């Protein structure tokens, strides 16, 4: 097979995968509005995803705030702009760095977990067993997980952003002798709704992407235990790429509205 044929067959399988994923997403939207609803399982998934990722998100957010402030401080000091520190850090974290970093962390933690769990259920025939027992496994396994990630990710991002700002305030207090009250005042002075709302809307899409790709890879897993590893790995890789694409679209759209 020549290089052009290889490229052609790879492109074909890439677009076929995109098509399959779009069909999977379409099935999600059909099933999510159709009763019966699996509220108990949804709550369980929300609890697991939120609770199990909380510590990781808090630690990451806190260190992000500390490091970002420590790294930015010398440059701003050089220009005599230390007083801009709280505004700059808060806008950067809330608009962009917080949502993207925490979504990437969750893609690794939650997305790969979903991929591996559903993948292992597929290869051990547990999904088939659900289907044979007259239960819709798509509704029970996929819909609940995608809705749970869509709802939980914005909450995790809000918490992560808050902790990052606390970390930043601590560094500012130690290095720049800025009181906590002054730091908080400056943060609230500089943040507008036009910073918070688009970032929050974006985080719902991030959550949806993490849940959807993880479920898609796991639900369609094949090739035994090797396939489970591949599903888990591919869930993280595909989600990470998708997160940056969503981020670009979100920033582009926000920019259009801000200009208006």
């Amino acid at each position, binding site marked *: 097979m020549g290089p052009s044929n290889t490229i052609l067959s790879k492109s074909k399988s890439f677009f076929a995968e995109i098509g399959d994923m779009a069909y999977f997403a379409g099935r999600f939207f059909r099933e999510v509005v159709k009763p019966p609803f699996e509220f108990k399982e949804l709550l369980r998934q929300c609890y697991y995803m939120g609770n199990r990722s909380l510590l990781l998100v808090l630690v990451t957010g806190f260190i992000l705030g500390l490091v970002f402030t420590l790294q930015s401080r010398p440059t701003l000091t050089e220009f005599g702009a230390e007083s801009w520190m709280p505004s700059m850090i808060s806008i950067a974290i809330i608009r962009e760095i917080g949502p993207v970093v925490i979504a990437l962390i969750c893609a690794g933690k939650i997305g790969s977990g979903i991929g591996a769990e559903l993948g292992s259920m597929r290869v051990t025939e547990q999904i*088939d067993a659900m*289907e044979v027992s*007259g239960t819709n496994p798509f509704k029970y396994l996929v819909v609940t997980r995608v809705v749970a990630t869509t709802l939980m990710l914005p909450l995790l991002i809000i918490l992560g952003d808050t902790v990052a700002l606390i970390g930043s305030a601590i560094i500012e207090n130690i290095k720049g002798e800025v009181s906590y009250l002054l730091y908080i005042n400056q943060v609230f002075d500089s943040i507008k709704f036009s910073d918070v709302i688009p970032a929050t809307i974006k985080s719902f899409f991030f959550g949806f992407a993490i849940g959807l790709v993880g479920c898609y890879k796991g639900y369609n897993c094949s090739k035994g235990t090797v396939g489970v590893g591949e599903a888990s790995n591919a869930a993280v890789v595909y989600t990470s790429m998708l997160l940056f694409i969503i981020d670009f679209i979100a920033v582009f759209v926000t920019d259009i509205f801000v200009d208006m």
Partner: protein
Amino acid sequence: MKEQDQKEPILEIKDLRKSFGENHVLNGFNLKLYKGENLVVMGKSGSGKSVMIKCLVGLMQADSGVIKIKDQDISNLGQKELDILRTEIGFLFQGSALYDSMTVRENLEFPLRRHKKKLELSGSTDKLVLEALENVGLAKAIDLMPSELSGGMQRRIALARALILKPNIILYDEPTTGLDPITAKEIIHLMRTIQDTYNTSSLIITHDVDCARVIANRMILLVDGINYAEGSFQELLNNKDQQVQAFFKT
């Protein structure tokens, strides 16, 4: 057999065909299962037994052929009707397929969540779960996780789960594979007991001759995707055909 011919089959497969690319797995397979009967389908690995049983419950789509369960052609059924029909069928998977994130109790409660009311099963969920576990002699395992059970115990729990909706038909996919000979005998004995107690019709897919000897009322040998030979265990054992004898020699 003569008597069975007079009766209507509870499950019927006509001219079932299924291919995966160039690999033709089923080439016009036929089967009739009657009420209260234990029908064993034997075949070598890769002969299409599992594909056939998966087509039977709608987990796989056949290329052509007719599958009728209780006179309903499953290819004409919508998802809702198929789900209702599936409650009439218990399925024991080869690897047990217990939900490993749930306890034994939750595994058994799972099929009841949606169908208990529809099927008008009497008694509380707890009572039905306990009854099913007692039938397989594992009531004490109710709060254990599947990972805490041995292979034989997992197979018994899977059987209890297959029975919980009180199905008329039970499909066994290699019920003794992967078990030691003593545990395999226990499972076979359990299958007989269940059949006697509930008067279910059973379709058993296996390549275990001992299992077939004990349990089969009638047998079909599946070779190259077609019914190669059919009859009672003794009839097939006495069959002089080399391919038929090959099954019994192993």
